């Protein structure tokens, strides 16, 4: 549980300080390592609120859509592998 909180803090920091592709990679790792990694949706919303706007394509919801894609595809991949 503690490791998960630390990982969440690292991911949260990366949303603010790291390039977006590092955030994506960390999110994939988090979704793979941890069971039911629902935090990913919060980080997706945070990215959209921090950097996006309504006038962008897909309503500026690239973060949350990316989070859904990562969550679903990694969950599927985990089922296949394990």
């Amino acid at each position, binding site marked *: 549980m503690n490791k998960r909180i630390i990982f969440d803090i690292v991911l949260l920091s990366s949303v*603010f*300080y*790291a*390039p*977006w592709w590092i955030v994506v990679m960390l999110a994939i790792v988090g979704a793979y390592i941890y069971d*039911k990694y*629902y935090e990913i*949706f919060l980080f*997706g*919303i*945070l*990215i*959209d*609120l*921090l*950097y*996006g*706007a*309504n*006038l*962008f*394509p897909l*309503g*500026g*919801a*690239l*973060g*949350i859509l*990316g989070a*859904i894609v990562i969550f679903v595809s990694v969950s599927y991949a985990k089922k296949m592998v394990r």
Partner: protein
Amino acid sequence: MTRHQNNYLLQRKKNALIVLVSISAFALLYSPIRDTLTRTLYYITPGIWSIGDTTKNSIGFVLANFRDKDTLVNENRILNEAIELMRTQVLDRNLLAEKVIGLEEALGRVRMDDRVVASVLAGPGRSPYDTLVIDAGENEGINVNNYVAYAGSGVIGKIIETTGNSSKVKLFSYPGEEHAVLVGDRYIPAVAVGTGMGNFEAKVPQGSSVEIGDNIITAKGDFILGTVFTIEEKPSEPFKRLLFRLPFNISQIRSVEVVIDKNL
């Protein structure tokens, strides 16, 4: 626990997840809620970014004392940034001065810009949207659609969202974004299409007099949008494809100027 109960719990979790995601998506897509959330978030985030920058600078300063080589590399980087900035300023000064004088004479009036200098809190490298976040907002008189310039007059984008102390800038190089521009010394009209991170492409008719290093200026506002760095042409096609970019590295800029009175 029976299999039936397990399935029931799993189904409930799935439903809860779908509801959670739907509410999140609605909050993002419905402007008033999104606006409120953004404003709330932006009360805190400029401070977080400032702490990050301060920490980074402090660590850099401490390490520089111990590592001579790194100090030199860092100094070199700063000097290169300064050269790039000066090069940009020199590049557009003559052109702009000439055009401004011409316009003022033609219209019989003097045009003045009201500019606000703002620091960049988060650049396009961090954002997946090709946006900048700056530390000036409504309190400094900044409004949506104000132009954002760098190094005096190289225009980079427009304000798309503003809160009390911060604003979001959508870069003109946003992928797919189209702008009317004038190419080179002969002011050939063209449409520039953003390709991200300060890069653009445009097409001009075959036979047009365009060279590498030519300036591209916006059709409205006389702002320099970039300089041509590649020209692709095939004899079989009626157009030349120009690739151009901002005359500075967009990911390295630390401050910008918001042109308050230009809603073009």
